[in-house]
């Protein structure tokens, strides 16, 4: 299976997918850790794909998204952004809106707490 097929299958089969370095339980990079941490804290059910475990995927996801860095978040098959964009969207409340519009369950109180802590 090519990396492209594998990526398409993964983002089709899962509402929320984070391509990251390491796993959600054990991130291997600060940027991946930050995004996985936000999603975990917000109680979002997401699939994690460890690009460090597969060199083909590591380059493949960059080509697929036309985006040079990892982590990369996909919601309902659409590329949302990398670490900086997810951070901004979390703080502005746009991530809440995105999840709501796509029927993705999340803990609004937890999201509000992140915003309070970073206000």
């Amino acid at each position: 299976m090519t990396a492209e097929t594998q990526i398409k299958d993964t983002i089709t089969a899962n509402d929320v997918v984070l391509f990251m370095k390491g796993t959600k339980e054990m991130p291997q990079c600060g940027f991946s850790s930050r995004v996985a941490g936000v999603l975990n804290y917000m109680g979002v059910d997401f699939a994690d794909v460890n690009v460090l475990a597969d060199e083909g995927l590591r380059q493949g996801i960059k080509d697929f998204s036309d985006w040079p860095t990892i982590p990369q978040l996909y919601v309902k098959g659409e590329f949302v952004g990398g670490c900086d964009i997810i951070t901004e969207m979390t703080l502005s409340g746009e991530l809440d809106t995105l999840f709501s519009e796509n029927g993705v369950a999340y803990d609004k109180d937890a999201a509000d707490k992140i915003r309070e802590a970073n206000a």
Partner: protein
Amino acid sequence: MPMQASEIEALLRQTFPDAKIEVSGDDGVHMAAMVVDESFRGMNRVQQQRAVYAALKGKMDGSAGELHALALTTKAPD
């Protein structure tokens, strides 16, 4: 080869001549950049950051990329 903040700024300046550009960080590998440019108006954040990555002309690509991490903030002027 790590990149100096001044090199990153010069590279971005070629694509965004009139932008407000601030590059910070001193290890040359983990850097931060803010780009405020009129051309970003009407673009979403993904489109804005793609434009910045394109301006960096492959400096972040693959294992040979000189920049490991560039924290980006992009927006149109207020």
